[in-house]
């Protein structure tokens, strides 16, 4: 692994969690293994472990989010950390305070970790490069760049159902252009050695250079879904659309909406995932979202376990970066 990776400390332990790109397979496997243990905490009478007792975590959300913010909050609470929820868009920055002053103010409050969601790509990296030495930064989504904790919870969900990544064909469907989830998932599937990663969507919503990431591009649903083990649906990001990239939502659903009929093309034990929130009747039919192949609600529970694992790894650092077992 590269020595100047800002995500790792001198001994190769996870210090910040900013992007899947730049992390190696043993590290991702370690995160998944740890999440397996943390997943059991939610089933106990006392849903709490004292690992991050006395640590203060600030949720810095420069962009609105419900699911990601609440699962980070719940993960922090289950680790016994104290958490501050800061909705920056309505805070000091709107009074004219510059970002670095906001960060230094939070440092002065003795925060130990920042969880950052921002509309600009690279925001979490920038903040990680600016903060005091003792602070860890976790990227909760930055612009169109990455959403690495979402990718890890998706990988965790896949591993729970499919075990071996090397045999899997995975299709990522929809608005890849605006999707940080897609980007992180492609990197994660590549690192974990998935057999084939396919991208399905209209020309206008597929980035031009995406094939450089080793994916296969399809513009027809039926063909793209043929024999896949996993379908990852993406939300149609209407709020990010600028210009006429799409005809109408109805027409989009006709061509790229996931229905049970289309799902017939995939393997019989296919799992269907979606990062939420779902646009029913736009990218996915209700019968599929609520159907037997859907693991969408499991993804939410897994999100808590994955975030517990990552938060505890950046705060304590693992004693081995590679998660070698003996």
């Amino acid at each position: 692994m590269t020595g100047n990776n800002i995500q790792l400390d001198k001994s190769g332990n996870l210090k910040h969690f900013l992007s899947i790109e730049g992390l190696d397979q043993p590290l991702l496997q370690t995160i998944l293994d740890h999440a397996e243990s943390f997943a059991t905490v939610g089933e106990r009478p006392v849903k709490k472990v004292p690992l991050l007792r006395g640590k203060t975590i600030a949720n810095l959300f420069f962009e609105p989010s419900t699911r990601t913010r609440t699962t980070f909050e719940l993960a922090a609470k289950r680790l016994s950390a104290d958490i501050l929820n800061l909705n920056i868009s309505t805070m000091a920055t709107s009074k004219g305070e510059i970002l670095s002053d906001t960060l230094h103010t939070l440092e002065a409050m003795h925060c130990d970790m920042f969880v950052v969601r921002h509309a600009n790509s690279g925001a979490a990296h920038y903040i990680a490069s600016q903060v005091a030495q003792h602070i860890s930064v976790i990227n909760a989504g930055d612009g169109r760049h990455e959403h690495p904790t979402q990718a890890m919870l998706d990988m965790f969900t896949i591993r729970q159902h499919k075990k071996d990544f090397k045999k899997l064909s995975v299709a990522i469907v929809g608005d890849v252009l605006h999707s940080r989830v897609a980007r992180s998932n492609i990197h994660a599937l590549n690192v974990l050695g998935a057999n084939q990663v396919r991208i399905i969507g209209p020309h206008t919503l597929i980035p031009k250079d995406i094939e450089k990431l080793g994916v296969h591009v399809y513009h027809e649903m039926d063909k793209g879904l043929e024999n896949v083990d996993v379908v990852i649906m993406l939300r149609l990001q209407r709020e990010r659309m600028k210009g006429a990239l799409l005809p109408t939502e109805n027409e989009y659903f006709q061509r790229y909406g996931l229905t049970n009929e289309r799902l017939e093309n995939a393997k019989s034990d296919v799992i269907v995932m979606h990062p939420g929130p779902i646009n029913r009747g736009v990218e996915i039919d209700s019968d599929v979202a609520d159907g037997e192949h859907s693991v969408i609600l499991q993804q939410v529970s897994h999100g808590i376990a994955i975030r517990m694992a990552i938060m505890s790894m950046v705060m304590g650092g693992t004693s081995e970066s590679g998660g070698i077992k003996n």
Partner: protein
Amino acid sequence: MNKEINIESLIDNMANEIRTHCEDLKYKKPLMIGIQRGGVWVATRLHHKLGYKDPLGELNIAFYRDDFSKIGVHPEVKPSKLSTNIDDRDVILVDDVLHTGRTIRAAMNEIFDFGRPASISLVILIERSGRELPIQADVIGKTITLKQGEHAKLSGPEPMALEIKKTG
């Protein structure tokens, strides 16, 4: 330096002592819990010898350690398995080596997050010096004396053997 401690005969003696201990204290249905990993190996044998009906509990104290900020998440964390309700039960907690006592403190904290046992007794295969907390075992397989810088570690599970290593 291997003084060839016969683990099997220690475990036989311990099983008898646990039986007496439970009779003396009138524990009708003791519930055995081992601490991963070595404690579970020892507990598996004791559990079998004593013929307990409730499944053996397995505790992973990684989330309760007090050295987390120094060494981080233990690389071998595996989930704790406690399938039986522990409220009002007499818990027999088993570990391989008793040294500082910090592992036992962490284990007791974790047990209380699963419920409120009536009592906890401590069973230890190897007791050594170096306690940093007021914790002592009720049943001990063997007490050994170590020189400064020496550490005792149980290897296993099949066969179990005690390794004395010089560290740092």
